[in-house]
Structures are given as C-alpha cells and as structure tokens.
C-alpha cells in the first residue's frame, strides 16, 4: 500500500510539467505559409491553378481504384434511399406516365409537321452531337468554395475544355480542366458558372449564375419579363458555349424573391455523365473575306489618291 502511494506521488510530480504535447515554432511557419497560399489563391494566381490541376489529374488512377470498394457502399445507400419512398414514387410515375403518353402523341405530330416545314424552308440541319459517357471519380462539392466533379475521361478520349456535360435529366455543367485520363466538370451551381438560358413559354433570355447553393440565380432578366414558378429553363445557345435547347431545370420562387432555378439533375448523386462533343459553331468563322474586301477598298482609294505608289495586297493576311 505504501508502495502504491509512493508510486502515485512520483507519477503526479513527474507528469505534471510534461503533460501533453508542446507546440514547436515550426507551426508558426506553417500557419504563415497556409495564410499566404490562401491569399495567393484569393488573388487567383494562374500558376497555382495550373499546378493544382496537374497534381489532381495525376491522382485520378488512385480515385479510380478507390471507387472499387466504394461501389457496394454507395449501392447500399442508394437502395435504402430508394426503398424508403418506393410506393410514393410508383404512384407518381403512374400519373406521369399517363400524362406523357398524351404528350408523346402530340410530340410525334409536331415532329412530322416540323420536318415538313424544315424541308420547305431548306433549313440548315442542326449539328449532330456525338458523346462519350464517363464516371464521376471525385466530388468536390462540399464546403463553401467549389461545386465540381472529376470524371474518368480526358484528352485521350478526345475531350476538350468547354464541352457540355449532361445526364438523362439535362445539363450539369461543362469541362474546365482536362488531363489525359480525367477532366474536371464545373457544375451549374458553382460560383464561377454562367450559362445563357431561355426561360418559360416567352423564351425570356437570362443568365443562370451559380452561387455555390443548390439553386442558382437567374440574372440579367429583361425588364418586364414574365417569369413564374415552374417555368422551364433551357440553354439558349447564345455565345456558342452550349448548344441551344438543353434543359436545365425549372424556376423556383420569383414573385417577391429573386428567381432561382431548381436543377432537374440531382447533382449530389452523380454517377455516370455524358460529355457532348460540341464545338462552338462560330469558332471557325474568320473575318478574312471582310479584311480582304476592306484592304482592297483601302488600296483602291490609295491608288486613286496616290497613283505613284505601287499596290500591294496581303496586309491583312
């Protein structure tokens, strides 16, 4: 008993001054470096963004490997989530199916009418879009900063920066960074996302602006534009970044509050996504003919005013 008391006494005296860890001066340096890096990121230093994507894309094989054990867990979660509201979902789908059957008949009629009208008007056929389907291997949508995902397809699959990314529910976003075997997709909800859209039956033009919330805002709506809750929102094709007519979602809120868009696709449960091989049709345009014409005009006027000067072409070439 005496031994035990002594031991406790020695233990108490010996441990008190060295209890726990000590902070080393190194931590001050690391805190400073972290703060400095954050400040550089705030200033949007391009060198940092290029470097970080190179590091992130080099790790894509690791994420692809990590998806193998993750799949069963995700399936269990998805099954549980589906089972919870199964009966309600069946009822909803029955009603929707009835509604869609009548719409299908109407759509077929309109399709044949449109084909006839296009043939009469000799309309330029719309660009046929090829696509490739990839898998989401990383999701950076947590936190306050970004809403993007990484997919396991890249430049080896002929993808390019700017290609739109969709799934069965509609537009999700576009590719902003690309590596050989992976690509980063900026989702429509990201704070840096801006998508030209048309809203509702009046096709009011606006910009869908992400703000890192689940429902992006509609900005630059024309004065007097009538936008009401439930109006469809689709890409307008303006600017050539996205093809026209890709559905995005429906208007939510609006009368007294700022109109927002409820995205049709569930961006929290992205698994497989398709990338459209869509190149901006206006990117191939050049102003060569116009330049040549203006150069020729200028040369002609020069020749008229200064007949002694020899004419030369190709200044605009």
């Amino acid at each position: 008993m005496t031994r035990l008391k002594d031991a406790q006494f020695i233990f108490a005296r010996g441990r008190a001054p060295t209890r726990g860890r000590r902070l080393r001066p190194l931590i001050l340096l690391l805190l400073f470096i972290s703060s400095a890096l954050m400040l550089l990121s705030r200033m949007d230093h391009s060198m940092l963004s290029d470097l970080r994507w190179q590091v992130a894309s080099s790790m894509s094989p690791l994420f692809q490997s990590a998806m193998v054990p993750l799949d069963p867990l995700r399936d269990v979660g998805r099954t549980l989530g589906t089972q919870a509201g199964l009966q309600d979902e069946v009822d909803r789908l029955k009603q929707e199916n009835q509604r869609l059957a009548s719409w299908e008949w109407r759509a077929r009629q309109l399709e044949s009418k449109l084909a006839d009208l296009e043939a009469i008007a000799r309309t330029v056929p719309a660009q046929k879009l090829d696509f490739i389907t990839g898998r989401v291997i990383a999701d950076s949508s947590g936190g306050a900063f970004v809403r993007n995902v990484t997919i396991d397809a890249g430049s080896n699959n002929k993808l390019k920066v700017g290609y739109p990314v969709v799934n069965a529910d509609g537009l999700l976003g576009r590719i902003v960074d690309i590596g050989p075997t992976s690509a980063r997709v900026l989702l429509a909800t990201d704070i840096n996302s801006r998508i030209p859209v048309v809203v509702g039956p009046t096709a009011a033009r606006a910009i869908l602006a992400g703000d890192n919330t689940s429902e992006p805002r509609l900005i630059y709506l024309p004065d007097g534009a009538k936008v009401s809750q439930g109006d469809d929102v689709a890409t307008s094709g303006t600017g050539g970044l996205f093809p026209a007519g890709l559905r995005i979602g429906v208007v939510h809120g609006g009368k007294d509050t700022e109109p927002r868009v409820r995205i049709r696709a569930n961006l929290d449960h992205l698994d497989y996504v398709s990338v459209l091989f869509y190149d901006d049709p206006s990117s191939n345009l050049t102003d060569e003919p116009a330049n040549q014409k203006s150069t020729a005009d200028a040369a002609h006027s020069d020749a008229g005013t200064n007949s002694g000067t020899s004419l030369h072409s190709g200044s605009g070439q």
Partner: protein
Amino acid sequence: MTWRVTVLPALSVLALTFAAILPWGLPSDYRFVLPLLPVVAIYYWTRDDAAWLPEWVLFLCGLLLDVLTQGPLGYWALVYLVAYIAAVYASRSAIESPRGKVALFTTAIISVTFFAWLAASAYFLELLDWKPYARGAFFALILAALVQLALVIAKPSKSATSLHLTRGD
C-alpha cells in the same frame, strides 16, 4: 504495437483526407462532415503522446485536400493546423473524467468548425451560411462517438489486462 503509434496516425489522417474527396452521394449541404473527419483523427492522435503525428504531415494533408477539391490553397492546411493546436491545448488539460473529455472534444470540434466558417467568410469577404458547417460538426461528433463506442466494445476489458500484468510481476 509500434506501427500503431508510428504509421497509423499519419496513415489514418491521409486515408480520411482521400475519403473526403470521394463521391459518397451525400447531399452537398451535408458533405462538410467529410473533411471534418480528419480533424477528429487529428484530435484523437494528438492527445496520444506516443503517436507520431507531426504538424507538417497535417499541413501536407490539408494542402492535398485543397489541391484535390480545387478550393483555395492553404484553407484546409490552416484548418488542420488549428485543429492540431486545439488538440495540443486539450491534451494539456487536467480533465480526466469521461464527461469532461467529451466536453473538451465537443468544444474542440466546434471551435475548429467555427474557425473554418470564419476563414471561408473572410475569403469571400461576406458572412457565409453557417448551417452546413453546424451540420458537419454535429455529424462529425456523432460519428466520432460511434467509433469510440466501437473501440470500447472491441477493446479487452481492463480487469483482464491488469490481472495479466499482476501475474507477470
């Protein structure tokens, strides 16, 4: 047991950092719990004096998470270092009762989450929505409690251990 104190601490923080970027299918408002799980591991290992978990490892793990999430560089590195500082101060406290330890841990997680919200707000120069952060902290505490419970159940009882040691003496 050497690997438990030399390799496991850094490895567990690194593994949880990688797990934070994987597509778990969680709603985006609830995903903030994922990067808080390494914070729980940092707290747990820092309180263990024998565990090898230097601050530069945490800095690198945080930086890795910043790179992989495409968020601002240095943000998670800063948060993990603050978590380390909180854990160091917690490890110096004389509180030994289970209730006191739980209170200390809860305070540490809430403090780190508050710092994360404050740093993100400072980055955007506006006060951000605090609810996703609060939800993340809440679920991180619940998960930590569940893991602790599992460890207690899996651990052999103290009486058996002491009996064995007594026999050895």
